């Protein structure tokens, strides 16, 4: 605990004198603040992307995990009979919780995004769809296919798994990519602060020499740089986070029609996540400057 407090002392004990011993450097200040703001803005977007991907993957998994479809393509005269036969087979199949044929209206609604409203579905050779809900145990798909082949030759069983799995995997990868991006942004912020702090320490070698001559400890000298960079990054990250938050807020809300692209907004308590970004950036800046200061002061000893 003592070590932690000692480590954090440059932040906990504000010393106006220590803050003033390092000469002001306007251009570097602006660059550090700008870079921190940009990094925080990107972090908010990466966070939104990652959370949205997670939600999407979960949604696809939940919705499609226990459902499948039978598509019946048959001449118009045989469509009703084959549908009837397929439904009969399904009611006798262990592992099928329920099965029902979609109405014309439901099929029309499914096709509407592609063909537009008012599609005369009864005049088109559209296959009949049967929606199947599975029990927790599931059914034997190979056995069901064989029976369907015998009873309703125009029926094709689609388990959804074929296209569901890669989609869920893609959503998982996208989520991972979002978190990796956040890690990279965090590391880049640390690298940027380290470079800026190193440059500042090197440029202020004479200041350090004077401070040492008058009895300043390494902790005192480091605190002058650490506080300065931590506060700069905190301010920059706060500005960037607010900008990112507003940008996410302005994104259209999620809808079935929009799908993934309109679902980037945070949902529920996830709106609190961006609040973590400025303190996280400040912590990274604090650790990076502290390490840089200790290293440079050791080299200058």
């Amino acid at each position: 605990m003592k070590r932690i407090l000692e480590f954090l002392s440059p932040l906990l004990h504000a010393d106006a004198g220590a803050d003033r011993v390092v000469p002001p450097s306007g251009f570097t200040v602006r660059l550090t603040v700008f870079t921190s703001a940009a990094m925080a803005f990107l972090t908010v977007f990466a966070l939104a992307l990652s959370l949205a991907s997670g939600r999407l993957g979960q949604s696809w998994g939940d919705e499609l995990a226990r459902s499948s479809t039978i598509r019946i393509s048959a001449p118009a005269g045989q469509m009703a009979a084959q549908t009837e036969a397929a439904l009969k087979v399904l009611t006798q199949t262990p592992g099928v919780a329920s099965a029902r044929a979609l109405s014309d209206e439901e099929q029309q609604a499914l096709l509407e995004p592609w063909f537009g409203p008012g599609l005369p579905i009864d005049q088109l050779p559209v296959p009949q769809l049967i929606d199947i809900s599975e029990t927790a145990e599931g059914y034997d798909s190979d056995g069901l296919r064989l029976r369907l082949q015998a009873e309703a030759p125009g029926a094709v069983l689609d388990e959804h798994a074929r296209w569901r799995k890669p989609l869920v995997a893609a959503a998982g990868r996208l989520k991972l990519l979002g978190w990796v991006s956040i890690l990279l942004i965090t590391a880049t912020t640390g690298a940027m602060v380290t470079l800026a702090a190193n440059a500042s320490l090197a440029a202020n070698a004479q200041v350090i020499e004077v401070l040492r001559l008058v009895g300043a400890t390494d902790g005192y000298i480091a605190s002058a740089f650490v506080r300065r960079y931590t506060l700069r990054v905190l301010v920059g990250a706060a500005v960037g986070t607010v900008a990112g938050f507003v940008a996410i807020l302005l994104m259209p809300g999620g809808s079935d029609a929009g799908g993934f692209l309109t679902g980037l907004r945070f949902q529920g308590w996830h709106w609190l996540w961006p609040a973590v970004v400025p303190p996280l950036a400040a912590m990274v800046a604090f650790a990076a400057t502290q390490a840089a200061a200790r290293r440079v002061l050791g080299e200058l000893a």
Partner: protein
Amino acid sequence: MIELDNVAYSYGGDALLNDISFSLAPGSFHFLTGPSGSGKTTFLKLCYGALLPTEGDVRIFDHSAKDMGRDAVAYARRRIGVVHQDCKFLDHLPLNENIALPLSVSGQATPDQFANLQELMSWVGLVGRGEALPPELSGGERQRAALARALIMSPDVILADEPTGNVDWEMSQRLLRLLVELNKMGKTVMIATHDMALIRAAKALVSARVLRISNNTLQSAGVDL
């Protein structure tokens, strides 16, 4: 207070100081002389822990310099006022803040101490110059400001490295009188200088010992002024 025991110091393989033993007694006044490059500045840096000996031991206030961490050296420096020939300041801070810097870094910047600052500035003749920035000061003002900064913590020891190197004769006399006055107040003073005229001038003011660095070793000049 400060003891050097068989100290040697080499730089880049060349011996600069060799087999030096010396003890700085409380209340003493020493001159350290020798030609340019003889190692006077190195000797002083060893005394205040800015350099570590390559052989032997330096004891600063009863602590071996080799065993002192950087923080311990920093604390020791608060008891040692150092004045350099090229007095360096923080150029972006006004003079009064520069002089008060030792108070700030030691966390002793109290209002009482700042009252002492005004008294000290008056004593070194810098009244009215507190708001000036260091680059605006003359050579003499910088030397007196460096002396004031060295004294603000009321140190036990004052080490001055060519304190009169950049000032005229009148100003060097004034600085000498200030250092003698400090010695009479009980401070231990050591001045490194190659200015023999300054040492002769001190004869009338103080009882001082003269040490000479010659052939890498410390010799007593054998003259009590």
